């Protein structure tokens, strides 16, 4: 049987009518109900002014956000150019990175460990780098004048150049070895 068979079409049309016609459809009969179906009709309030007000509010909020972010960026970095803000931020992060290591306990010249001091927290919070010798509390105290002036310099270059050498190569160059078995010269 072909798809366009009249018998099939007749059967299909009758079943379709039968199914759709028995569906209950409620149509408003009164005028008020009909008007209720069209909220944008004659006697209803238009939403256009409300939409305009909402749009203007959104614009004001967006503008406030832009101005606020610009002000914060300028106050933080001191530059009005947003392109510089990223570089300034990276610089301040890099500057603050060494100070964060100072929060770990560092041994004092006397050998008593000190806990993290409030000084390091303050130095990390301040954007300006400190040039005072107190802020440099690195574990290599030999670079600082205070460390070189410590009473017990142990592994300093000055200690290597001390007049009492202990493991020097001079003992191997003794006269006994020169005139011995002669294994070194042959």
């Amino acid at each position, binding site marked *: *049987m072909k798809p366009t068979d009249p018998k099939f079409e007749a059967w*299909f049309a009758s079943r379709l009518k039968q199914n759709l016609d028995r*569906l209950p459809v409620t149509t408003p009969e009164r005028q008020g109900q009909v008007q209720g*179906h069209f909220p*944008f*009709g004659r006697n209803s309030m238009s939403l256009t002014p409300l939409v305009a007000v909402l749009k203007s509010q959104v614009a004001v909020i967006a503008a406030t956000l832009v101005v606020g972010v610009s002000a914060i960026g300028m106050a933080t970095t001191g530059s009005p150019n947003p392109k510089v803000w990223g570089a300034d931020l990276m610089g301040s992060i890099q500057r603050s990175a060494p100070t964060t290591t100072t929060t770990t306990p560092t041994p004092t010249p006397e050998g008593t460990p000190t806990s993290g001091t409030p000084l390091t927290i303050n130095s990390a919070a301040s954007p300006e780098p400190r040039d005072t010798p107190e802020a440099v509390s690195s574990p290599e105290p030999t670079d600082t004048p205070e460390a070189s002036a410590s009473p017990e310099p142990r592994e300093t270059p000055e200690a290597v150049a001390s007049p009492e050498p202990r493991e020097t190569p001079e003992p191997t160059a003794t006269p006994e070895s020169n005139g011995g078995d002669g294994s070194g010269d042959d």
Partner: protein
Amino acid sequence: MEEGEYTAGDPEAFERLYRSTHPRLVRTLYGLVGPGAAEDCAQEAFEKAYKAWPRWRGDAPAEAWIHRIAINVAVSHRRRSRLVEIVGMVAPGLVAAPDPPSDGWGQDVTHAVRKLPVKLGAAVLLRYYHGYNNREIARILGIAERTVGWRLGTAMARLRTDLDDGLADIEDRERLSLRNGQHEAN
């Protein structure tokens, strides 16, 4: 109702059009979008039609014009539903489950029509439920008559495949009645 009875932009004429076409329009939409969304789509179609009523030209029947609007609404609804289905597959908790079919729905020709692409389903409903001919359908849908013929042929071929059981049932009954008739004659 003749299209000459309507005046573009006249609210009373629109109310008359609404009353006369609402049930048929809702039933068309039942066939295209199902029971859950037909009323909503009909309301949306009438709202759109009400806004466009002052621009309605009398060269096309008002009922055909409003059917065209309703079918466009159904097309948009089916697109949205497909999107919701996709979202539901990706994130099941994000969207609500679709409405279950009501009693007596989903096993017959109306369900088969609803499974068709909406443009094919619209042509089928306009032809086999409303009784429009190909030329009138072409005017309603804004397409060529040849396209209407192609859509109807394609749709009926698919429906025939889907509804084979129903047709087989009809043929069985016809065969049975024929046999009974012969038996009674004997």
